[in-house]
């Protein structure tokens, strides 16, 4: 197991006062709160932070932790010295963060002397709701148009008969309904942790996230596409093939289309009520002058068109 440097996690000196620690915690908790932060490791950092704070805010635990000495480095292989906690008495309690998810390092130091508040504290005869579980599901944009099934592997901590926490992997096949949006959630009742006593099982929430797409961008239920168009198609008008997540369509480019013009294909966005729209943004691309014939054509245009793209710039 790796050593965790709680002072480093909280960004404070070893000599920091309890007030400093509280301030640092509040500040970092706001920064890394998973509902606020979009940093990919926000959740892990928030957990680490909760764990660090649970130790450093509690003078007993902090004193015990300090006794390990300042020579340990974060990530270093760690075994608690024998009887390291002799002479310390942990009154338990505290927590606040999701203490059920604290690290092995924490467990090895404060183990069963510590019971998280509002966490996995169970007593005989109690009826407790099982915890809800949350997971992200990555789907393709096309799946939102058609619906899909996904096989999802979830790792969940589980208490075994001896009261130890072990990790269990389970696989679920889940139907993704047609018309889902980024960030939307699917609730699977009773698929979270089992309840204690007569308490009901928790729920499993799956949050939808789209894989990045090479062609399309998504905003809510609206979908955006940049469509390359040749200059003559834009100038003269044309019917061209355009991809959509639902398969290719014939798209009419009006005569005299200019760069950046947006064509709206109603109800061709993500299905729903109301369905989204598909916006096609026209990008006029310039053919290369890489042959004598092409160069001649460009020279002819230069001679015959008298076109000044900068006429309105006063130069």
């Amino acid at each position, binding site marked *: 197991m790796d050593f965790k440097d709680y002072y480093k996690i909280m960004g404070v000196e070893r000599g920091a006062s309890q007030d400093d620690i509280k301030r640092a915690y509040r500040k970092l908790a706001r920064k890394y709160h998973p*509902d606020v932060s979009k940093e990919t490791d926000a959740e892990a950092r928030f957990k680490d932070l909760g764990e660090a704070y649970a130790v450093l805010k509690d003078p007993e635990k902090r004193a015990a932790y300090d006794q390990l000495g300042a020579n340990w480095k974060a990530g270093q292989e760690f075994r608690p010295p024998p009887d390291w906690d002799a002479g310390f008495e942990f009154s338990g309690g505290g927590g606040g963060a999701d203490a059920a998810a604290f690290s092995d390092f924490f467990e090895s130091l404060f183990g069963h002397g510590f019971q998280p508040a509002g966490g996995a504290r169970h007593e005989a005869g109690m009826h407790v709701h099982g915890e809800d579980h949350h997971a992200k599901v990555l789907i393709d944009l096309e799946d939102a148009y058609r619906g899909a099934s996904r096989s999802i592997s979830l790792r969940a901590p589980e208490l075994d008969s001896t009261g130890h926490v072990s990790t269990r992997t389970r696989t679920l096949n889940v139907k993704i309904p047609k018309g889902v949006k980024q960030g939307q*959630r699917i609730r699977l009742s009773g698929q979270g942790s089992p309840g204690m006593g007569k308490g009901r099982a928790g729920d499993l929430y799956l949050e939808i996230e789209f894989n990045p797409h090479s062609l399309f961008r998504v905003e809510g239920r609206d979908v955006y596409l940049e469509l390359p168009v040749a200059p003559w198609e834009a100038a003269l008008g044309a019917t061209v093939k355009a991809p959509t997540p639902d398969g290719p369509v014939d798209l009419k480019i009006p005569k005299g289309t200019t760069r950046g013009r947006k064509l709206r294909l109603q109800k061709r966005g993500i299905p729903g009520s109301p369905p989204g729209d598909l916006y096609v943004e026209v990008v006029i691309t310039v053919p290369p002058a890489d042959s004598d014939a092409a160069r001649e054509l460009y020279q002819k245009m230069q001679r015959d068109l008298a076109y000044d793209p900068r006429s309105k710039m006063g130069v």
Partner: protein
Amino acid sequence: MTQNTLTGVLLDERTELSLTELSDACSTSTEWVIELVHEGVLEPVGRQPNQWRFSGTSLKRAHAAMRLQTDLKINLAGVALALDLIEEIETMRERLHRFEKDDSI
């Protein structure tokens, strides 16, 4: 391990939850949910609490409100403000992402 395919409930604008269903799903009291409504965090349809109907997206907001209140010790007015700002930032992020061009075309 083979299993049947599970079908969940998509929590979108069309899903409807009663006050009790929403409170149960958050493992909280109806009083707390009523406070959220008074603070404008949740906007159910219906006049009386026993007629209230919450959309599926309310549940996500209620869960987030609960985490923000517990983890960051902010009061409900602060939670309401944070949720509105977070939502606005998410919309802007999606929009920004749309304009972030890559050179693939």
